[in-house]
């Protein structure tokens, strides 16, 4: 029986081999003439047709990025009869050195039938003039391909990102997703995060040509498919306004709808002009890459900094949630706090006197928070830092978001191989020491306060070609809503009480709440200035964070910018809009 089955297998295999044999006979013997003629003349040529990339619009439909036409001078290798003379003629037509042209040609050569770029982005008038002279040069032609254009230049550059030729490392990862060599891919920003939607599908024509490269027949055609358009939550007007406020400053600012997570404006300063990466001029690119201000760094989500006093918001919540402080609890501030032999100072040398929690937030009293922090202990502060989302991503739809550091005694032991001292706890309680946060994390902290315990996931892309991006999940701090009552009273007074530290953000006919921060960043440098806040105070619609690198006192520079933004928002109707 079994041997019988082995025989059946043997027969089946022999039979199936006949099928292959027949097919090979069909192609190699019967089809020989046809295929031989195709192969002899090298006659199948593929002409790639690049798909244009999807456009990007702001929330009102204003163009932020789109594809334009670019004219490139290309050489089709298999049509060149004599490379030397072709290059000489090209050199005469374009005025470039022959050696230079040859080097570019060698660099961009891929396949005999794929046009190799020689000169990119030729202005249209010049392109037409050159084209007339190319008739006598076989293999050379002007090729029009889509080219990315960012009409607003620097404004919003960190949101947009830029595009560039795919790197080998990226290609390895993305090959299976339909990417190929020399594709342009998004680098950073929305261009990178949503590349798969924006990029479209390249097409091409495959033709059979005769020995003089004339088309005989079309073997295959694939229409290039345009990428999808994105509409952002960003308001270009607001973006431009914030951009102006940051003109001579380094830093970051994010303005978000508190209830929905829509990011209306996101600025990181200094900015860069993404068009420079498109036009292919190396000097401009090198200038950006060498700039000591790191313009490519998105400070709003990738930069991490000590939060300074803005972190007191978190410590205050921890105090209330654990029952360590009540409405009536006060600590005495004499201007200095002693721990063993070490003195920790309040920013006000004469001291604040007796402070309850609302006053302590209003005046940003360090001694109050030293005392509270000591009573809580490092583990409790760490626990609440985590519950406010510090040390974790907000999940905004932009690449390269940083996590920052929410330190704990365990963290210090593992990372720095050192024990945790009580002095570390004291520093921790005013947002100094090992704590590092991104501006967008602080935006989440303040939004949690604004919403009494939750923060929607911040997002930038509203819809992809008319299809809404999926609703993001909400981040919950898992704290009782009542707990925020005293915090909000403190943050209201900080801006609106005549003794508050955040008066710089005060406006007459609009209630703004917020917390300032002046974070030390090394001994000899100016402090970082912070302001986190929301408005209107009672029914918050907008949360914002302002961060100025080495900007001095948060109560001055950062709060001022927050005020100007608040006025802009009010005057431009951002507070009258319907949500959801």
């Amino acid at each position, binding site marked *: *029986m*079994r*041997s019988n*089955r*082995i025989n*059946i*297998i*043997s027969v089946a*295999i*022999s039979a*199936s*081999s006949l099928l*292959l*044999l027949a*097919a*090979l*006979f069909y*192609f*190699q*013997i019967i*089809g*020989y003439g*046809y*295929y*031989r003629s*195709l*192969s*002899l003349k*090298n006659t*199948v040529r*593929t002409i*790639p047709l690049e798909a244009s990339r999807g456009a990007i619009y702001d929330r009102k439909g204003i163009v932020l990025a789109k594809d334009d036409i670019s004219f490139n001078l290309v050489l089709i290798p298999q049509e060149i009869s004599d490379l030397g003379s072709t290059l000489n003629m090209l050199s005469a037509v374009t005025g470039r050195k022959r050696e230079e042209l040859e080097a570019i040609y060698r660099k961009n050569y891929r*396949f*005999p039938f794929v046009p190799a770029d020689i000169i990119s982005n030729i202005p249209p008038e010049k392109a037409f003039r050159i084209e007339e002279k190319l008739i006598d040069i076989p293999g050379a032609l002007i090729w029009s391909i889509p080219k990315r254009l960012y009409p607003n230049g620097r404004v919003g550059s960190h949101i947009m990102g830029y595009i560039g030729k795919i790197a080998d490392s990226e290609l*390895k*990862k*993305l*090959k*299976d*997703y*339909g990417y*190929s060599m020399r594709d342009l891919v998004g680098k950073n920003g929305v261009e990178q995060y949503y590349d798969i939607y924006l990029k479209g599908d*390249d*097409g*091409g*024509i*495959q033709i059979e040509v005769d020995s003089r490269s004339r088309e005989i027949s079309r*073997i*295959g*055609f*694939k229409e290039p498919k345009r990428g999808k358009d994105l509409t952002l939550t960003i308001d270009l007007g607001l973006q431009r306004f914030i951009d102006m406020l940051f003109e001579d400053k380094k830093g970051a600012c994010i303005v978000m709808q508190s209830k929905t997570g829509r990011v209306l404006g996101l600025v990181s300063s200094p900015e860069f002009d993404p068009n420079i990466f498109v036009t292919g001029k190396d000097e401009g690119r090198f200038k950006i890459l060498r700039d000591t201000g790191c313009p490519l760094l998105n400070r709003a989500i990738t930069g991490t900094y000590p939060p300074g006093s803005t972190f007191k918001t978190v410590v205050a919540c921890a105090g209330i949630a654990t029952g360590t402080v009540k409405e009536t609890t006060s600590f005495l501030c004499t201007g200095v706090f002693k721990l063993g032999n070490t003195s920790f100072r309040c920013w006000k040398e004469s001291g604040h006197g007796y402070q309850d929690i609302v006053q302590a937030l209003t005046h940003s009293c360090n001694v109050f928070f030293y005392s509270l922090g000591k009573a809580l202990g490092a583990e409790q502060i760490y626990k609440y830092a985590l519950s406010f989302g510090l040390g974790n991503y907000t999940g905004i739809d932009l690449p390269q978001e940083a996590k920052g550091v929410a330190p704990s005694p365990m963290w210090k032991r593992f990372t720095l191989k050192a024990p945790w001292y009580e002095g570390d706890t004291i520093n921790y309680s005013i947002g100094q020491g090992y704590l590092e946060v991104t501006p967008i994390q602080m935006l989440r902290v303040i939004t949690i306060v604004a919403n009494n315990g939750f923060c929607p996931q911040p997002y930038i892309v509203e819809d992809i070609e008319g299809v809404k991006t999926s609703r993001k999940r909400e981040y919950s701090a898992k704290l009782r809503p009542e707990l925020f009552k005293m915090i909000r009273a403190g943050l209201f007074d900080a801006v609106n009480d005549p003794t508050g530290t955040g008066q710089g953000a005060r406006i007459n006919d609009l209630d703004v709440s917020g917390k300032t921060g002046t974070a030390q960043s090394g001994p000899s440098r100016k402090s970082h200035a912070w302001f986190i806040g929301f408005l209107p105070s009672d029914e918050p619609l907008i949360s914002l964070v302002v961060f100025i690198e080495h900007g001095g006192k948060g109560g001055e520079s950062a709060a001022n910018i927050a005020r100007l933004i608040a006025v802009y928002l009010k005057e431009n109707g951002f507070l009258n809009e319907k949500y959801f």
Partner: protein
Amino acid sequence: MKNIFKNTDPVLLLVIVVILIIAFLSLYSASHQPDRDLVKNYSMQQLMWLGLTILVAILFIKFGYERWIDYSYLIFTLNLLVLLLVLILGETRYGAKRWIDLGILSLQPSELCKISFMLALTKFVMDNNDRIKEIRTVIISLFICMLPVALIIKQPDLGTAIAFLPIFFVVLFTAGAKIKHLLIVFMLGAGSAPLLWSVLKLYQKKRLLVFLNPNIDPLGAGYTIIQSRIAIGSGGLFGKGWLSGTQNQLNFLPERHTDFIFSVIGEEWGFMGAVILLGLFLLLIKRLLAIADTTNDGRGKTLISGIVALIWFQVFVNIGMTIGLMPVVGLPLPFISYGGSNLLSMMIMIALAISVGLKRKVF
């Protein structure tokens, strides 16, 4: 060592040597670039692999196929764990992750899993041979088969995953399962194809669709098929001669040292060459089946049927793919396509078959 040579079918050994020589010549030609030194010569690298795989093969013969079958459950489980690991590690990056990096050499665990699966399945059906007529046995076997298939499809590596199916059917068939049961499983499989379709990645769907119409993607998979057909067709009866294939030498054929190596053979050696290679593969299979026919051990017989099924399936699908009869699923041509994992698994299978043959001689 001497015993191995003395007691092994000389025709079998000779066939393998000839196939390996053809492999070397074809790889040399496929990576031969007179005017450009960018491309490394794959034939030399493959020779290094050959040396290594011969050593492994001898170890497999020495150890004996029976012991491999005895330990097969353990090996198969470990192999599945490695696949899972690859998947988890791969999850953190984009794209397909199939390799384990061993310094200069990298291995595809999915390739070796075909063998450990074959061994485990042989053990299962022979341990339960008294119940082979029950549908239950077939269902459990199918379950064993689906474990690696699911993990490998997820990688995603459609070609390797599909190669598990002929092993499953042929091993159960040889072990004596009811044809009716196997047909039911086959029908179920065909019925659930739409389900499979939904888990495929976009590029895999594209490749399968391109098979139906190369013009869907004339620049990607379609281009490869068109160029491969031109290469093979223009080979004619006697071919253009070694190192003289124009399609090959002019860089028109992508992936020509791996999945599309047969296009190079077809172009340079023509119909005659292709027929000879096909004949060699058939001869190899006949000699392997001859061992299965003469052995007294049911396990050895079943194992060899699985080996034969896999080798022939890969030959058939690979050649079919290069002439556009089969979808481009990414299966290498046994012994010939460039790649250490492919050669290694082929040599191990031959070693196992030789080991079955040696046992027969002892009695």
